[in-house]
Structures are given as structure tokens and as C-alpha cells.
């Protein structure tokens, strides 16, 4: 298995066939007609993930309302908003994890490199290509080595295991701390180390996009700083979407930030712009702590 390059639009594995030779930005389907603004044209040109008119229901509860946004390749995009605003639900829509929850309904489209992940796509392949790191570290009750290699083996990996484990642990900035005890139980690691191990485990199946749902919420400040440093390095190779309640964290690590409120996307902009001169009053009220 070859190492992925940092080039924008490197698609890795095709969601339909699992073929790693296909895909790319050139495959992006552009349904729009007419003239695009400069920003819009740039978004389309570099969008890794595109959400179009997405609505989502838990039973009769309408939790996402007509969401349209682009996530740019090789950037960190942060989703912020008060509890219940729909940001984690949207994150799970990006790799079809909500399908695992009964009595849910989705309308609209989610495109990765222009291909709709809900249309003629294998959900397992989708989740392989779009990895997820959860709020609480959840290593398997196995050794550090096995934690990293497990997902890759399940997905049919036949290459050099030592090489893959080392590469993923290095990318997750954990290698130096565990290289002499790879056979130790993962539960013996600290919380921050466990979270980076989970990132390494996610990277081992060669995703294009890494989704993180409040990945630092269970970590102390030092582990959080290490994790943030890791995220900033990872964006050279991967497209990252982070849900966070910590707005300072969003400011530190993300290139673009989207603010959600009551299931609606209120504003999405460059992070610096959103945290210094938000264009919407609701965004300003939220980030300055005046509601939420």
C-alpha cells in the first residue's frame, strides 16, 4: 500500500468499489449553472466534502434543516454551536453513521470528491474512507500494536504490518512515546495517549477525511495541546472536521468554522473572520457568550 500524498483532492479509495486508483477533484459534479463568485469558485475547486440541502430527522424531530456547505481539502473545519444544534448529527451524516440509529430519515446529498455517499455506495467503504474519532478514547482491549493494525487487517490489508503501525503512530504523534512497548495493553496508556492511539487506528485504514467529535473534551490541557498539535500536522495529509464546544480550540486549530443553531447553519467563514468580525448577530451573541 502506497503512502498517500498531501495533494488536495487525493481521494484514496472509491466509495463504490473500494478501488484506490479512482476519484479526484476532477470528478466533482458541479450542478450549478451561471457565474460563481470567486469564493464560491474556490470552494468548489477545493471542496473535499460537499453537503447539499441536507435535512435530517430523528423520528419526527427535524434536527438538520437545509444544510449546504463545503469542507475544503487539507483544511481543518470546525463545527460549533450550542448543545442540540445538530453539529454532531451532521458530522455523523458525513460517514453514514446515523444509519445505525433506528427511525431516522435523511434528505439531500453528501458528496465526497463529487460522489454522493448515499447513492449506490457501500456504507462500510464510506466509513473506511471517512474515519471517525469519538469524544471518549475507546481503544480495543488489545495491545497497542493490535489496536492500530486491527481495522486494516479487517479491511484486507496485506502489506508490511510493522511499517503501517509505525507510520500511523508517527502521524498520530504517539510513536516516540510507545515504540518500546507496542505489545503493552492500550488501556495502560493515559487518556491523551489513548485518544492519539484511536487517531492512529483511524489512519491505518487510509481514510481521506477524518471526523472528530469533541476529541479533546475528556483530556487535560497538556494532552489537549498535544492532540491539537497532532491535528494541525494531520491536515497536510487529511481533510479534518472537528466538532467542538471549546471555541478557543476551534480558533487555534481550524481554518474554517461553521456555526449552527437549532439545526440551521447560521454562518460559515474563515475562522479568523468568524471570531473577529462575524457577519451574523446570532454568531456574535454565541461566541461572545451572550446566549447558548
Amino acid at each position, binding site marked *: 500500500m502506497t503512502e498517500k500524498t498531501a495533494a488536495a483532492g487525493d481521494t484514496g479509495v472509491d466509495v463504490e468499489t473500494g478501488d484506490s486508483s479512482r476519484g479526484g477533484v476532477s470528478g466533482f459534479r458541479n450542478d450549478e449553472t451561471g457565474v460563481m463568485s470567486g469564493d464560491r469558485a474556490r470552494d468548489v475547486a477545493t471542496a473535499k466534502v460537499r453537503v447539499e440541502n441536507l435535512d435530517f430527522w430523528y423520528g419526527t424531530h427535524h434536527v438538520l434543516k437545509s444544510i449546504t456547505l463545503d469542507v475544503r481539502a487539507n483544511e481543518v473545519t470546525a463545527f460549533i454551536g450550542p448543545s442540540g444544534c445538530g453539529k454532531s448529527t451532521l458530522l455523523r451524516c458525513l460517514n453514514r453513521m446515523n444509519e445505525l440509529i433506528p427511525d431516522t430519515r435523511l434528505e439531500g446529498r453528501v458528496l465526497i470528491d463529487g460522489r454522493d455517499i448515499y447513492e449506490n455506495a457501500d456504507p462500510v467503504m464510506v466509513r473506511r474512507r471517512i474515519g471517525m474519532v469519538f469524544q471518549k478514547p475507546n481503544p480495543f482491549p488489545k495491545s497497542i500494536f493490535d489496536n492500530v493494525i486491527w481495522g486494516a487487517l479487517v479491511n484486507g490489508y496485506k502489506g508490511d504490518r510493522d511499517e503501517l503501525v509505525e507510520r500511523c503512530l508517527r502521524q498520530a504523534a504517539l510513536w516516540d512515546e510507545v515504540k518500546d512497548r507496542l505489545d503493552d495493553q492500550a488501556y495502560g496508556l493515559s487518556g491523551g495517549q489513548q485518544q492519539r492511539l484511536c487517531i492512529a487506528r483511524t489512519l491505518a485504514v487510509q481514510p481521506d477525511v477524518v471526523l472528530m467529535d469533541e476529541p479533546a473534551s475528556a483530556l487535560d490541557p497538556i494532552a489537549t495541546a498535544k492532540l491539537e498539535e497532532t491535528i494541525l500536522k494531520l491536515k497536510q495529509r487529511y481533510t479534518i472536521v472537528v466538532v467542538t464546544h471549546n*471555541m*478557543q480550540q476551534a*480558533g487555534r486549530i481550524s481554518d474554517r468554522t461553521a456555526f449552527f*443553531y*437549532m439545526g*440551521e447553519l447560521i454562518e460559515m467563514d474563515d475562522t479568523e473572520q468568524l*471570531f*473577529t*468580525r*462575524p457577519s451574523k448577530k*446570532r454568531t*456574535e*451573541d454565541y*461566541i*461572545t*457568550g*451572550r*446566549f447558548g
Partner: protein
Amino acid sequence: MAIDVHSNRHLDEELVTLRRLLFEMSELVDEQVAGAIDAVSNCDVELAHRVRERDDEVDKLELDVDHQCERILALFTPVAVDLRLIISAVKVNTDLERIGDHAKNLAKNTQKLERCLDLIEKTRIREMADEARGMLHEAQDAFMKQDRVLAREVLAHDRHVDRLHDETLKTIAGIIRAQPERADEIVHLVNMSKSVERIADHAKNIAELVVFLVEGVDIRHRGAQAAAAEEAGNETS
């Protein structure tokens, strides 16, 4: 869509404290400028002495405002309009302290200027002083009320003060040629004109910060900004 609005009370309380300190600073500096100008105009040495003594109060308030800004930045990590308020407060604080220093310098020269009152009358320094004081007052008012329209009016006044300063310097040059034996007194006259002109400049700075605070637009150094934008345009083309 209804928003469940509630106040971030703790931060708001800290911001109220900051505004109160800035208001005190602003009032004190205004009094200092008025006192200094009156002292010079009336050769009131006693008033001048009081102005010089009260400069320590200005310095103390400057430290208090800085401390409050540091506290808010460290404890609350403000963003957006709150962040702009803190940035503006730090800079306004410095401008006010500098204005206080110019008032002290004016007051310090009162006795020396007594001998050149006749020369002052030949210049437009009094008019400048009135204009600068008016600008300061309006700039402070604009900051406290966050009134960007009033702030922009202050900017226009600064150009007028600059013209009066230029005229004054030309007049002083004429006096030097005509009465070179009064060179020592004339030096004080130049200092006085410069101090008043600098007070107007600091008032203008405060007004520019009001525009930044309210609109989020930095209107300082427009020439430099245009050059940077042009340079960026050349790089991308």
C-alpha cells in the same frame, strides 16, 4: 427564530468596570487639558501647578485600565466585539495618558510663556487649543457612546488643526526673523503649538478606534493599507 438570550453576566460586569475606569481617565484628562490651556492663557501659575500635580492620578488610572484589560484577556478570552473593545481600550488608554503628558508639559511652560503672551496673540495657537479640546471631548464622547458618526466628524477637525499648526509655524518663523533677540521665548511657543497639535492627533486616534470598535474596520494608515492591497494584488496576478 427566537433566541434564548441571556447575558454573559460575569464578563459584562468586568466590561462595565473597564468602561467606568476609562470614563474616569477620560474625565480627568479632559480636566487636565482644560486646566493647562487656561493656565497658559491666563498665566495662572497656581493652576499650572495643580495640573502638574494631578498627572500622577492620570498615570495611576492608566495602570488601572491596563490591569483591567489584562485581567479580562486572561480570564475571559474575549472575541469579536468584546475583543475589539479590549484592543481599543488599551490604545485609547495610551492616547489619553499621552494627552495628559502634553497637558503637563503645557502647564510646565506657563511661567515661561508669560513673557511671550504678546507673541501668542500673533499666532493661531488659542484657536488650535479650542479646536483640540473640542476634538478630545467629542472623541471621548464617541468612544463612550460608541458613536461612529460623531467619531468620523472628529477626523475632519484634525485636518483643520494641522492647517492652523502649519500657519502658526510660518508666523513663528516670521517672528524669529523680525525679533531674533526673543529666540528663547519663541522656542516655548513652538513647543506649545506642537503640544496642542499632538493633543489633536491623539484625539483623532481615539476617534479612529471608535470606528474600529463599532464597524470592525481599521481606518488608520490608509496609504499603507492601499499599498499592501496593491502589493497583494500584484502577487496574485
